[in-house]
């Protein structure tokens, strides 16, 4: 008697398991088949290290417009080894990887790709497990360990906050100022060309070391720069395929010696 029940239970369980797996694969396995949004744009950023003087105005503009904490900037300014006695800088925002480790591993899908390639954060979904901080090879993510109440020292000199402060207990990171891109496009402006439609850090750079634009458009500032100069992506060997490119400082040196 008992053995019959056992076998039946086993078969039932196996059937339920198979059904659940099938439904899961059908429902979730192929997001592209669900008529996911498409976009004509592929946004990217180019940072010219030969031009960057490390003034940090990009970081201040970011802090003002995105209302970030002073001690947890979205755009970090890092000083590298000097080249021929001249300092070299690397401003580091979120890389908006095409193969983003954070998007793969977020247990609740709170961080995700928009059709135009921007890696977004859903602060309403995030449970604050901080797995994405472990997964990000670029240290681009900061966590709200407490409620952000302090005054923003970059306001109003470097701009006014354009987005809400993030609540306690969620992770946050650079968004490529998607709100400026969307608002600009709605007004018929072109991100990368019109200042109001361009990420705040790019618009604020006084020496033109930051370039923004659409990789799909061969005439966009980023496509032009990438066609002209060799570029590097950070930790290329990981295969994350970042959408932030660096034109190395050594390039200027090579050009000078060539001329």
């Amino acid at each position: 008697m008992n053995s019959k029940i056992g076998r039946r239970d086993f078969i039932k369980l196996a059937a339920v398991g198979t059904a659940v797996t099938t439904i899961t694969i059908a429902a979730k396995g192929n997001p592209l088949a669900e008529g996911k949004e498409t976009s004509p744009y592929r946004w990217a950023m180019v940072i010219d290290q030969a031009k960057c003087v490390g003034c940090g105005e990009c970081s201040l503009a970011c802090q003002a417009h995105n209302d970030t904490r002073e001690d947890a900037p979205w755009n970090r300014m890092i000083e590298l080894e000097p080249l021929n006695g001249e300092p070299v800088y690397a401003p580091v925002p979120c890389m908006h990887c095409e193969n983003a480790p954070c998007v793969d591993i977020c247990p609740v899908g709170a961080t995700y790709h928009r059709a135009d390639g921007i890696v977004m954060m859903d602060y309403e979904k995030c449970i604050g497990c901080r797995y994405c901080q472990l997964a990000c090879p670029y240290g681009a993510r900061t966590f709200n360990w407490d409620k952000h109440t302090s005054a923003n020292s970059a306001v109003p000199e470097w701009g006014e906050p354009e987005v809400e402060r993030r609540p306690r207990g969620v992770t946050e990171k650079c968004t490529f100022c998607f709100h400026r891109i969307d608002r600009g496009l709605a007004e018929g402006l072109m991100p990368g060309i019109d200042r109001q439609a361009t990420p705040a850090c790019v618009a604020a750079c006084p020496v033109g070391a930051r370039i923004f634009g659409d990789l799909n458009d061969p005439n966009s500032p980023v496509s032009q720069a990438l066609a002209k100069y060799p570029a590097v992506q950070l930790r290329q060997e990981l295969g994350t395929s970042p959408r932030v490119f660096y034109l190395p400082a050594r390039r200027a040196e090579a050009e000078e010696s060539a001329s």
Partner: protein
Amino acid sequence: MSQRIKLHRAVFPVWVILLVLVMAAGLAAAVHVFSNGLVVTNLTDLVPWGLWIGIDLSAIALSAGAFTLSAAVYLLGWKELQPVARTAVFIGFLGYSMAMLCLLMDIGRPERFWHAVAFWNIHSPLWEVTMCVILYFTVLVLEVAPIFGEASWFKTRWPKLSHRLHNIHKIAPALAIAGLCFSLLHQSSLGATYGVLKARPIWYKPSLAVLFIVSAVIGGLALTVLASKVSALLSERANVRQDVLDKISRAIGWMLLGYLYLRFWDTLGMEYTLQPGRTEGLHLLTSGALSFNFWVGELLLGILVPAVILVSGKLRRQPRLHLLALLLTVGGLVAYRWDTNIVGQMVAFSYLPTQIEPLYTTYSPSLVEVLVGLGVIAYGLLAFTLGVRFLGIVDHNSLPEEAVEPILAMPLPVPTD
């Protein structure tokens, strides 16, 4: 009444009061965390997973005796292990509830704990772990329910409910299968949670999943036997069959040797991958800040010494050495989980091409973290103590339940035509 039993009866209330006090301190610390945020911990953006994750990982791993012994009893038909499986299932139930308490403390938005159920990301090992933990906890609740139903005080008060809970036993084989599936999935996926992170080379390897499941089975069995033996020493309500426990201990000893082989080659083989960040992490383990933990805590005291004691019949028959070996096995598993979690965070490799120096970080838990952690552990100990006293959790003389035929061990029907 012997002198010893009198002493135990006197100590019992002291022990319970002590645990309640530690739990109260933990609760106060938890309130502090909930009202002020995780800023009161020593966690940072560079080391976001600390003591609580360590306790969480250890509690889940040490609960693995439940699925292992349930599978042995109900699938392989090793019926003599049935009373031990009962202890293991109760420990598993406590272990998973401890793990969930730790996770609730650790996540920034505890009120959104259910999001993983509602918003799926099937690519995330952590999503899979969360789902399996929830499903397996359901299995454990069903497996533990008959234990409550069978307690005499429960029977006299709620006879009907007791009967219903007891009847859940009928699906024990199905529960054992479900528990085996969910456990194999998430015990190894906890290793994969670290193993899939390419950003942290010391973690990035498929073998973490294997090491996690193997060490969990060993540590889970060791804790089950240890808790049974200690209960029998300290409580008149507990009685054990030493011959049955002895068999399990011997198996633990041999499995430890197998695990030593895996852990040794897996770790030292990493030296030759020459991967930036991985070599540095490995040196932290073998000669740096974690080297004592690694060589002494994990390998020598955590594996080698207990393996020798448990494999050798002569040493194992000395009760004190036997207990020590089980305790060391459990400690070795905790050390492994702690080292694994922390080592990948201690070396954050630079992402900048001209800066090849890795960034070394440190972490030691704050008082608040320690208090919450101790509170969770005190809850587990208290619940187990009460379980031994009022639910007969460790009782190898209990009448075996009405025969439940193991399903996998059944002979196949002979074709008639």
